[in-house]
């Protein structure tokens, strides 16, 4: 029994480590991201190659990167594909604002409450779906139903703000001043560094999970759930854990969103599109990797933004974006981060072709 467990885990380890998750790579990527505000003002011969990316857009990119990183912990590592993470994003946003409005609490406390509520919701949903052994498409649709259910509920209940949602209160309304303690600033740069900090923290959590025994179990569930259960791994418990952690962490970029923008509504933080925007960077970048969500977000959002800025015919930018998405998925199903590996594979094959050609 034990041998079979180790056998299985051994196979999973080799599968997992094919992915790029070496700490050095993560640190380098994060460093580049952190330097973005400076990189974008670099001018070469009068032209700023990254100048078209505004701070606002960088912030948005990082929001999705952070959310995708959190999503990845469940859907990428354990393979339970959630199409309803907007539920947790929205909970984070609303909890933060409502904690201030209803409880006079600090938005940071609100964020923690949001994370807690999101975790509970995740555990409940997970508890139901895993108990009934919902898999694949069915599980995805169930999560989508939960997200939509929350959206309609928030849109219909006056206490929750209904369609108009809530305005973000001013710092002085909760006994504070602009700055970190108030979770809001008067200019954009501090917001960038704040979301960057969140990204670093959540990335660290993701990396720690992934490199630990827990991560091993997660991947075992993803690759061979039945086998994992057969060798005694408590799959339901670990799937629940992944769901809860992922949900709680997704609430954090939601809370950030509520403090970055001036209003939140069901149409904005619970929108169906948010479900897609959360998972897109992870899938495009590399599902199950640690740098994937980050790199993926820097592919997805800037492409959409660049298309929007440079294309005159309104609507054409969406078509271009759709085409690009399809091409990326068709030609790199394992994500953008697999390109370096595939490139070196290609080079290796070119250098010494197998199958005996004349040399």
């Amino acid at each position, binding site marked *: 029994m034990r041998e079979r467990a180790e056998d299985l885990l051994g196979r999973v380890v080799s599968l997992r480590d094919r992915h790029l998750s070496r700490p050095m790579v993560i640190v380098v990527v994060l460093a580049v991201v952190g330097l973005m505000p400076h990189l974008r003002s670099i001018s070469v011969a009068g032209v700023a190659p990254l100048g*078209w990316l505004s701070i606002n857009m960088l912030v948005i990119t990082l929001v999705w990167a952070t959310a995708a990183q959190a999503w990845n912990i469940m859907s990428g590592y354990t393979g339970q594909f959630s199409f309803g993470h907007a539920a947790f994003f929205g909970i984070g946003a609303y909890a933060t604002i409502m904690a201030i409005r209803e409880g006079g609490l600090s938005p940071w406390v609100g964020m923690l409450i949001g994370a807690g509520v999101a975790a509970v919701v995740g555990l409940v949903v997970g508890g139901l779906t895993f108990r009934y052994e919902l898999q694949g498409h069915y599980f995805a649709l169930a999560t989508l139903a939960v997200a939509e259910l929350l959206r309609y509920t928030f849109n*219909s209940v006056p206490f929750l703000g209904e369609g108009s949602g809530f305005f973000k209160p001013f710092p002085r309304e909760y006994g504070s001043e602009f700055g970190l303690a108030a979770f809001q600033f008067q200019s954009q740069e501090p917001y960038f560094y704040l979301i960057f900090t969140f990204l670093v923290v959540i990335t660290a959590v993701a990396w720690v999970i992934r490199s630990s025994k827990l991560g091993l179990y997660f991947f075992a569930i993803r690759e061979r759930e039945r086998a994992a259960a057969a060798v005694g791994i408590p799959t339901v418990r670990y799937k629940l854990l992944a769901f809860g952690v992922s949900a709680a962490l997704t609430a954090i970029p939601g809370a950030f969103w509520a403090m970055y923008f001036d*209003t939140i509504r069901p149409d904005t933080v619970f929108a169906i599109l948010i479900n897609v925007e959360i998972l897109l960077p992870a899938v495009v970048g590399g599902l199950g990797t640690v740098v994937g969500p980050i790199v993926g977000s820097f592919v997805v959002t800037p492409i959409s933004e660049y298309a*929007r800025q440079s294309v005159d015919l309104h609507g054409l930018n969406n078509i271009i974006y759709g085409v690009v998405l399809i091409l990326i998925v068709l030609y790199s199903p394992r994500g953008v981060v697999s390109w370096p590996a595939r490139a070196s594979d290609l080079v290796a094959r070119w250098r010494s072709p197998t199958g005996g050609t004349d040399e």
Partner: protein
Amino acid sequence: MTQRDGHRSPGRRTFIKIGGAAGVTALAGCTGGDGGGETDSGATTGETDSAPETIVIGSNHPLTGGLSYTGGRMDQAVQLAAMLTNEAGGISSLGGAELEVISGDNEGAQELGAEVAQQLIDDGAHVLTGCYSSPVSTAAARVAERAQVPFVISVSVANSILQETQLNYVYRPQPSAAQMGIDHARLMPQIAADGGIDVTTAGLYYIDISFGQSIRDTLREELPKNGVEVVAETPINFGETADTQVTQLRDADPDVVISTTYNAETVELVRAMDAQNYAPPLLAGCSSAAFNDVGSIEQMGATADGSLATNFALDPTDARAAEVQSRFESEFGEAFDANVAMTFASVQAIIAGIEAAGSADTDAINDALGSITVEDHIAAMPPMSFDDRGENANALAPLFQVQGDNSYVVAPEDYAARSPTF
């Protein structure tokens, strides 16, 4: 005006430079470095020699996506206002300086509201207008406030835009949702009673999003104050038919059905009413664009005849207003409705501010806007005057009636084009 951020947007930006005499719209696209420092619009404070040759108005509207049906036309209204001003000789206090409109597409998305506003500022806009969707307007307002560029809202209904925050650079000529509800609850029963229709009960039909809910909430409070009891409330969502809603109204049998939706949903209401052979004694609308839209009126047919609708609108007693409408229709071939009229009027406020300022300096324009009274505008309301919150103290939403194939203001009398008939 110093350049803001220092970054340029790549490639082309849609540039509508409104030419003078011929009134022909020339679409000029520039590649590479455009906007900002290279154009002529860079008069800084203190420079007294040459007057600037163009003042740039930034138009921030949804040009794609679900709201673009209206957003596109609002953008065209901005262009028309600039075009007509240039034809009439430009800004006289600046020696005939011309107006130039640059347009951005916010796609109705909150994240893009700020983005587009910033880009318009970076591309040289001296004044901004927009955005139609309220979360978008709020985001754009923050950017304008931070950049100290005046922002005159074209259309954005939400009550709280100017009330939650002290914004010194943001103005809203149109009445808020609450104001429209108050005006409707007051005027509609009165005019109906004068015409022999006794309104004591009402059924509310509203689109189940922020603006529909806000007006519903206001009507809930205000109608009883005017002797009308709300006996039914039924919401509609996008892409639905109104059959069940009409059945609900049939069951409640109110004296008046008040619709608060975008165009399509009101048309669906009338269609469902026809299918069920149901018509209340009075059909009404509060901030429902369909009753002011010739195309929608045609689609609704005879059932809509005689309906009373509250909305901000074009002043029918103003000859200039009629000119603007026909010019809009011939220039763009699109329907001229309340949102178009309001947008045009907002740009007129902007133009008045520029004239009064006599300079392209954004602070001068802002100060002017805060202190002037805008008399020359096509909206059916008194001269505009902005209070210290930026709201128009004289904002008004008159009452229309659909008569035949168009709608006409019937109350208050100062702006009435026709008398109500039932």
